[in-house]
């Protein structure tokens, strides 16, 4: 067959590569600022836009979707064209993908800074941006699938299998987890509440790790590692087995984020066992990568690209072993809510994603600019500084996590908590937080060095926007399996069927876990004393969501003696039925708040305490790392949304009486005046229409209903 000549689009790859570097620095610098706020809480600057709860989502989203996302597109746009022996399907779609993605990132950063958030981790974007994400993601998918369809190769290579799984699964996850009813352009309530919202969210959250941070990067590894090493892939058979096992099993493992929570026990068990079963499929990727380097290890010593890859793949192997261990209840009882999770996430983000991204950039930029990497030495220095940065980042956090978890759990001989004041367990970690910040700073220094090296490389070279290649057109092939052709080999030349099988594989686990939580009532036993929030509490709760309080405070007391003694009643599924969204949190930089309003409880504080604490936490305790929230005291509560919020809640099934929306603001003001009067009796003058009043009302509601139930497990004595 005659050879056809065509051109690879390098320009789109270059754009994504530059965006990767830019957002990488932005995301990590914000991360460093967060790390420093642990040491100097004054670095929140006392203004809303730079406060921990608002910029933490900027950091996580920037690193995941901006840095790693653009890195993923860089690698996919480069490798897909070459693996398909075809230019991208449509240049316009490529451009829309690129500019649309950058627009989303800018909108994300702005909205988060302004407190526009859904309050669901790694899915904080509000509904208009969610829609934009869906559109741009489908553009990417159409462009990718179009390219695969018009390929000039018979079969699709394993890297492309992973790209397909990425596209299919992220589509399903994003759409399902983002379903919400808008209140305004900038505010919506998720259709799920409480336990169901938690399960959907962590099914999403866990699989965002799986299908945004893992599968696309395994695809990149399968292309760039053998290319850079010039070695054949170790085992095609292993590729098949670990690919299908990975995508089928991964989707089930989400509940491991909710161990010892109010999630039904059977769902927790599934989370445990599917996480443990993930070790081998995950390691399949590591093994296939590392064994591909057989015969090329001498080159690993010299070639920075391979060096970065080896550490990336090793970090992947480490965190995919650590993850399943953390998913066992024994380890999770210690690791959850501590910095262990943060350390774990950063081994993945800095080691696996960060290093593999730089390996890819060091590989493709010199090639597209028809030159050599400007300085190997500098790249090696980047490698060592980065590696050191990861160690300095992670080790103190593991140390700190075990320290803090032990302090949380320690009792005196007389049976009292040894460290009843939560803050003591935070102050203890200060040296670890300082070291962690040094580690993060080192990693950024490495990145800056890498960027400098790449800029010099780019300056020395000449960019080739259109790279000529040639290959014979794809002969039309038999749809049916040929004699002696394996099923999988057949599937590899039938991409549409491949996509459908992958879709089925990832749907099974999600459906089996999520659907019963709706259909089987016993999964969420109701508690009669649990009532909907009052309008003032609802507004206060939305401020709680806006400020990102969940980034530091959990609302989930685990059934441990050390937690029921510290906080009160352990969490019940039935107490969260009106929580749109759930606010269980995943990290305790401060104490759990779900029993804050229980008057006879251990956590109870009067209204005036909350007022003073928001105004100046360090006045109450100079060691506190709580940010200042003084704008809550000066800003007016937006009453224009109350009626609409009540109506949306009614639509979602919250049993406010009919017509309640019309009197909601009256009720709100009555309650607000009560709190303002109480504050006045303590010498604090504040108008009832200020945000602080709503926030206090919400905090004072927390835990009240479930304690009012007086269930036999109540541990609050002295009643």
């Amino acid at each position, binding site marked *: 067959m005659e050879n056809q000549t065509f051109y690879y689009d390098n320009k789109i790859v270059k754009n994504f590569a530059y965006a990767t570097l830019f957002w990488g620095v932005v995301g990590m610098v914000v991360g460093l600022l967060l790390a420093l706020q642990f040491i100097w809480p004054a670095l929140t600057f006392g203004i809303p836009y730079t406060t921990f709860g608002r910029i933490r989502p900027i950091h996580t989203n920037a690193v995941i979707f901006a840095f790693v996302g653009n890195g993923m597109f860089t690698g996919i746009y480069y490798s897909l064209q*070459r*693996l398909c022996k075809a230019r991208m399907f449509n240049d316009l779609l490529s451009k829309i993908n690129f500019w649309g993605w950058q627009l989303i990132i800018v909108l994300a950063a702005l909205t988060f800074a302004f407190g526009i958030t859904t309050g669901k981790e790694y899915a904080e974007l509000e509904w208009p941006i969610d829609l934009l994400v869906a559109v741009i993601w489908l553009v990417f998918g159409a462009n990718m699938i179009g390219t695969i369809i018009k390929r000039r190769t018979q*079969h699709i*290579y394993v*890297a492309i299998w992973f790209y397909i799984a990425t596209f299919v699964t992220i589509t399903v996850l994003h759409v399902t987890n983002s379903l919400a009813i808008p209140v305004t352009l900038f505010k919506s309530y998720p259709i799920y509440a409480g336990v169901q919202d938690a399960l959907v969210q962590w099914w999403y959250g866990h699989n965002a790790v799986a299908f945004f941070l893992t599968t696309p990067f395994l695809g990149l590894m399968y*292309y760039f590692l053998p290319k850079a090493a010039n*070695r*054949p*892939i*170790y*085992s*095609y*058979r*292993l*590729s098949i087995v670990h690919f299908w096992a990975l995508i089928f099993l991964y989707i089930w493992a989400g509940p491991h984020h909710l161990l*010892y929570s109010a999630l039904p*026990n059977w769902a*927790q*068990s599934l989370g445990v066992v599917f996480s*443990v*079963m993930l*070790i*081998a*499929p995950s390691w*399949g990727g590591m*093994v296939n990568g590392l*064994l591909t380097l057989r*015969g090329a290890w001498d080159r690993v010593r010299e070639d920075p690209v391979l060096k970065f890859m080896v550490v990336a793949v090793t970090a992947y192997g480490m965190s995919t072993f650590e993850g399943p261990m953390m998913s066992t209840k024994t380890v999770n009882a210690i690791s959850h809510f501590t910095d262990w999770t943060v350390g774990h996430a950063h081994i993945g983000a800095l080691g696996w994603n960060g290093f593999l991204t730089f390996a890819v950039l060091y590989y493709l930029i010199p090639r597209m600019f028809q030159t050599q990497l400007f300085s190997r030495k500098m790249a090696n220095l980047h490698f060592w500084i980065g590696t050191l940065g990861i160690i300095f980042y992670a080790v103190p956090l593991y140390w700190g996590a075990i320290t803090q978890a032990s302090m949380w759990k320690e009792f*005196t001989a*007389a*049976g009292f908590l040894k460290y*009843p*004041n939560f803050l*003591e367990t935070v102050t203890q970690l200060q040296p670890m937080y300082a070291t962690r910040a040094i580690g993060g700073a080192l990693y950024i220094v490495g990145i800056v060095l890498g960027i400098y090296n790449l800029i010099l490389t780019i300056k020395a070279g000449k960019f080739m926007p259109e790279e000529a290649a040639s290959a014979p057109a794809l002969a039309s092939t038999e749809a049916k399996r040929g004699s*002696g*052709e*394996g099923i999988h*080999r057949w599937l590899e030349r039938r991409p549409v069927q491949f996509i459908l099988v992958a879709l089925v594989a990832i749907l099974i686990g999600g459906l089996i876990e999520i659907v019963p939580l709706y259909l089987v009532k016993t999964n969420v036993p109701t508690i009669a004393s649990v009532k909907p929030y009052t309008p003032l509490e609802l507004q206060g709760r939305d401020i709680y969501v806006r400020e990102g309080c969940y980034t530091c405070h959990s609302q989930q007391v*685990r*059934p*441990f*003696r050390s937690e*029921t*003694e510290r906080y009160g009643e352990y969490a019940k599924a039935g107490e969260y039925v009106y929580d749109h969204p759930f606010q269980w949190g995943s990290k305790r930089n401060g104490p759990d708040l779900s029993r804050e309003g229980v*008057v*006879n*409880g*251990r956590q*109870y*504080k009067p*209204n005036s*305490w909350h007022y*003073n604490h928001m105004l100046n936490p360090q*006045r*109450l*305790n100079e060691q506190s790392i709580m940010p200042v929230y003084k704008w809550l005291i000066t800003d007016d509560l937006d009453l224009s949304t109350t009626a609409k919020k009540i109506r949306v809640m009614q639509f979602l099934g919250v049993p406010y009486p009919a017509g309640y929306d019309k009197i909601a603001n009256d009720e709100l003001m009555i309650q607000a005046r009560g709190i303002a009067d109480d504050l006045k009796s303590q*010498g604090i003058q504040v108008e009832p229409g200020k945000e602080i009043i709503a926030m206090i009302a919400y905090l004072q509601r927390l835990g009240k209903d479930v304690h009012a139930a007086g269930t036999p497990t109540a*541990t609050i*004595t*002295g009643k």
Partner: protein
Amino acid sequence: MEMNEHKTVEKDELTGDKLLSGHEYDNIRELDNNLPKWWVWLFIITIIFAVVYIFVFDVIKVAPYQQEEWKKEMADAGSLAPGQSALIVNANLAALTDKSSLEAGKDIWLKQCKVCHLEGGQGLVGPNLTDNFSIHGCAYTDVVNTIIVGVPEKGMISWKTQLSDDQILKVASYVMTLKGTTPPNPKAPQGEPCK
């Protein structure tokens, strides 16, 4: 299992492993190696673990769920469960004055009390404890009693679940030493003057 199997088997030069014919993607080749044995076993063992785990926890239910774990943990703690202050507060109870007791009391104060009464006892959320006024009584026994039962509706929680009797006596004794001191920014007097 290959469609276009060639007669001559191509081998990787460095390892001698068999290359799969027809598997070439942008010059990336694939080897026909089997799954590593240890890897297969690892996978099988985790699957067996999963089956046994679900069987034990969710089918025959012989292993404890978290609610039972908690009950057992509480039962094991037994009499140690706090909140059962045995203090008999009577007029004979006198404040401790020895240095080590007062130092221990101060330690508790700094961890638990100052967050409302501030470090010097000048008061902010809670009342000023340095002046000659009191809402709930001026005597040492009154202080002890307030710490034990609390005034929850005003924000002073009952501390008997978080402090031992010994700790309560020590911190109350420390509170008595605050009276008459002059920390900065004292809160205005509240309650009745002490006699």
